């Protein structure tokens, strides 16, 4: 396994602040991996990401990208990464087509290749229809898709994406995860991303770090982390509020609203529940295993 990023004892303290924004993090990201960062607002995710791309210098500790120190070799870092900041306004004075073209050309593509890359990415990110619009006149979702096109233009081997699905509708969110998975599988692109979209991200992320107060509270594959928390099934039941269903002995429901229960069951209890329930009295039933979102909520709390 080739290590793309190696982070050792990373610390970041902002001037005049007592609390560390990044508090002694150490981890590795493998080449070709999709690594997700989950965490509350202000947990230190963006600070970490800005250090990974060389925009912020660590207070102490070390970050290596393919074996080279990020602080020392800033020029090297810029030839390896495509970065999407949280702000969607980076190239706001350009049209959509211009922004993608210049990003590809400044990342070393020839003029012809940059034009082809622009046309391909505008189609891929579903923004071809607005190619002549000035970026200031875009909706939040369109701006986000443009930023993704700009970050991915030029085919950098490492993508660092800060909240890539913010402002997007569910259809576009799903599309973004599919495209990113495609880059990862087709080109071997290493992807590091910050997201709050844990449910959708689960389909793409291969390893996850859950950040709290500048530290990882959990780090590993979603499957391994899930195995570490209780093996419960979640059952959502909806029923007429005046006629609640009968449950197996020992199953205690959590009432979410009138006529809606959440049950946390061991796997062997699930069959018993289905046998006992009078499904004619149930208006909706959904059963799920532990999701990435549950993991996030578990470790964040």
């Amino acid at each position, binding site marked *: 396994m080739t290590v793309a990023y190696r982070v050792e004892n990373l610390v970041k303290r902002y001037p005049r602040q007592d609390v560390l924004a990044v508090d002694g993090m150490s981890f590795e990201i493998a080449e070709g991996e999709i690594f997700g960062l989950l965490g509350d607002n202000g947990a230190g995710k963006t600070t970490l990401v800005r250090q990974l*791309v*060389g*925009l912020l210098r660590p207070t102490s500790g070390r970050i290596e990208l393919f074996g080279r120190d990020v602080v020392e070799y800033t*020029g090297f870092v810029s030839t*390896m990464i495509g970065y999407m900041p949280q702000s969607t*306004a980076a190239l706001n004075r350009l049209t959509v087509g211009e922004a993608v073209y*210049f990003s590809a050309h*400044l990342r070393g593509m020839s003029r012809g290749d940059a034009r082809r890359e622009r046309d391909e990415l505008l189609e891929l990110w579903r923004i071809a229809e607005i190619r002549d619009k000035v970026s200031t006149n875009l909706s939040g979702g369109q701006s986000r898709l443009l930023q993704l096109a700009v970050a991915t233009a030029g085919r950098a081997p490492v993508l660092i994406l800060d909240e890539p699905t913010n402002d997007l509708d569910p259809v576009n969110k799903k599309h973004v995860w599919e495209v990113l998975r495609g880059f990862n599988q087709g080109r071997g692109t290493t992807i590091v991303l910050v997201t709050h979209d844990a449910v959708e991200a689960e389909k793409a992320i291969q390893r996850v770090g859950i950040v709290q107060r500048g530290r990882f509270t959990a780090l590993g594959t979603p499957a391994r982390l899930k195995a570490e928390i209780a093996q419960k099934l979640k059952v959502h039941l909806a029923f007429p509020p005046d006629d609640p269903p009968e449950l197996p002995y020992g199953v205690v429901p959590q009432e979410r609203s009138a006529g809606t229960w959440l049950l946390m069951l061991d796997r062997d209890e699930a069959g018993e529940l289905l046998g006992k329930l009078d499904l004619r009295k149930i208006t909706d039933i959904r059963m799920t295993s532990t999701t990435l979102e549950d993991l996030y909520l578990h470790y964040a709390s």
Partner: protein
Amino acid sequence: MPPSLQRPRPHIQFTDLFLIQLSNFRWSWRGQVVTGMLAPVLATAALGAFAGRDQQSLTYVLCGSIVLSLMFQNQNNVAANFGYMKAMGTLDFFATLPVYRSLVVLATVLAFFVLSIPSLVVTALVGTMILGVPLSISPLALLVVPLCVLPMAGIGALIGITVRSPAEAGTVSMLITLLLLFMGPVVLPPDRLPDWMIGVSHVSPTSYAASAIRQVVIGPVTGQVWLDVAVLALVTVVTLWGVGHKLPWHQK
């Protein structure tokens, strides 16, 4: 390790960055019309009326208006643009591309110089018509005009990257404009100014710019122009170096 991206050659970086910055005409043209053309032309008309028929005063009014158009419109726009780029993450984005930060500064400053050329031409032509001052343009104008723009653009860039918001950049830039414009023989001849103001004007780049502009636009060109050029070149180098040094690129 996967193959890295190719860093474009400096002239390609510069051309792209210059074209990106030229796209600022999409927002700056209104400012160019109002503060780059209308304000200098109105100032020319108003100050020209006070100057009467005194040829020396009229010359100062015309050249002062050209300096107003050439220098301060640029300074304000560059300050606003750097303030905006800093606030919106554009500088961060550039810092993650394989481009040199000095070329970002140079491309920005030169793009705004090009964007200010229409203001310069309109101010010079309309001002000449209003005041009746005959123009005698020297070829040295090709050297002097950019050198009048660059120091103030450098000051504008410094303002933009050091203040906290684009709005603050506009306020600070306007304050510096007023101070530099009226602290010296720019729009008024030296014999109408108090002695202390003449003394202060020796440290103001605007005085040297106005002097150089008078010589290459109205004439005659004297040896003074080389001192003016040297001072403007020095201020340009110092301010642009300061911008390159202070530009938030890889922050501590």
